[in-house]
């Protein structure tokens, strides 16, 4: 059995961007709980699409010892995985990429695959459309899960919303 947790790559999760009133308090709470569940089972490796995504992973997985070691990462032997990725950033007129009517269906398709524990379905993500919907490079990270993750036996969708016009998911998969 292994564990996979998917969290969004919003920079608001980083401590250097803290506010007095946390704009992502609900999300952060869910993310922290999900990452806690992931690390209960031992170290985890990170799947990220950008340096910022890697910083978020490093922050969430914590200082040395909690994350998978470099050798584990290079050998691909760590069974648990933190995936830092979100959907489109074009869900509303106030979204970073403004409103794109295609975004809702794009995100819904990914959301269904995540909720179904069906990583193979993520292979169908259209990366060209993803770029137009401001979902790259994260969409590529999600698509790669099709080949990285074993069959999923249990799914928990802890968060599925687009509070700033950016689609966030927090999903836990128990695999194998």
């Amino acid at each position, binding site marked *: 059995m292994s564990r996979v947790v998917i969290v969004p790559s*919003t*920079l*608001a999760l980083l401590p250097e*961007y*803290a*506010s*007095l*009133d*946390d*704009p*992502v308090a609900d999300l952060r709470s869910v993310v922290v709980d999900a990452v806690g569940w992931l690390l209960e089972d031992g170290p985890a490796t990170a799947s990220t699409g950008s340096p910022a995504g890697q910083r978020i992973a490093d922050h969430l997985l914590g200082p040395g010892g909690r994350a998978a070691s470099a050798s584990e990462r290079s050998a691909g032997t760590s069974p648990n995985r933190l995936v830092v990725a979100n959907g489109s*950033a074009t869900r509303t007129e106030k979204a*970073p990429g403004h409103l794109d009517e295609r975004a809702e269906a794009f995100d819904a398709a990914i959301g269904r695959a995540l909720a179904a524990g069906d990583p193979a379905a993520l292979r169908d993500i259209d990366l060209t459309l993803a770029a137009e919907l401001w979902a790259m490079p994260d969409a590529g990270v999600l698509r790669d899960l099709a080949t990285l993750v074993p069959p999923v036996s249990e799914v928990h969708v802890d968060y599925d919303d687009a*509070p*700033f*016009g*950016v689609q966030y998911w927090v999903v836990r998969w128990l695999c194998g």
Partner: protein
Amino acid sequence: MTLRLGRHEFADDATLMMAIVNRTPDSFYDKGATWAEDKAFDRVTAVVEQGAAIVDIGGIKAAPGEFIDEAEEKRRVVSFVERVRAAYPGLVISVDTWRAPVGRAVCEAGADVLNDAWGGADPALVDVAAEFGAAIVCTHTGGATPRTRPFRIEYDDVVAAAIADTTAYAERAVAAGVDPRSVVIDPAHDFGKNTFHSLELTRRLGEMVATGWPVLVSLSNKDFVGESLDLPVGERLTGTLAATAISALAGARIYRVHEVVETRQVVDMVNTIAGRRLPQRAIRGLA
């Protein structure tokens, strides 16, 4: 330095709004608007809702005018302090007085701070603060007699004079038994100073902050603002806020004000720019 104002303590990085509440019929700004006790109490209620941590209650206007004896000053402030104390146990109550007997009476009634706007004119005031565990504001007036206007006063270096006098006063207060965490210094803009002096104190306020004593500034609608902009009382808010911004950047801790909301916004914005305070809620470009 951690600040202890009577019953209340504040963190090292806290900035505090001290709202002016006049129990006078003739103060320069409000011209008696809170002379009636109920009006003054309404003012306390309003400034608490606006976020003031401190009210500064005064029974005598600073400028020359009708002589107010000790008994009359007590009549104006003591029972009012009792009323505010009962209604707002979490509020810091400061009383603007130079007289030790008045200080004693208001401390017995629940005051937390003695704001000695006339710079130690009554040397026994520190003993009262020490006896009651009250804080004291040590101001610089250049030795001016209470309720007098400056007349051709000059300093070799007004900032050096203000630092020397306020820190000496602070040390005298500590020697008298006042808790060092309960001593605040104030350059006292306009008091014993012309406009050029007050401007220089504003410009070089960082030198007072560097003494390590918490600095209070009382800038609100004062003549140095009015003369800088050639504006009468009532049209000095923007200039006051500009001086407030400079003071906040220098690191002032307490702001004695008429306008709480506007001052709080300026102080918070400046301290956020300076990196001493987090933004209230930042998500732009981060989502």
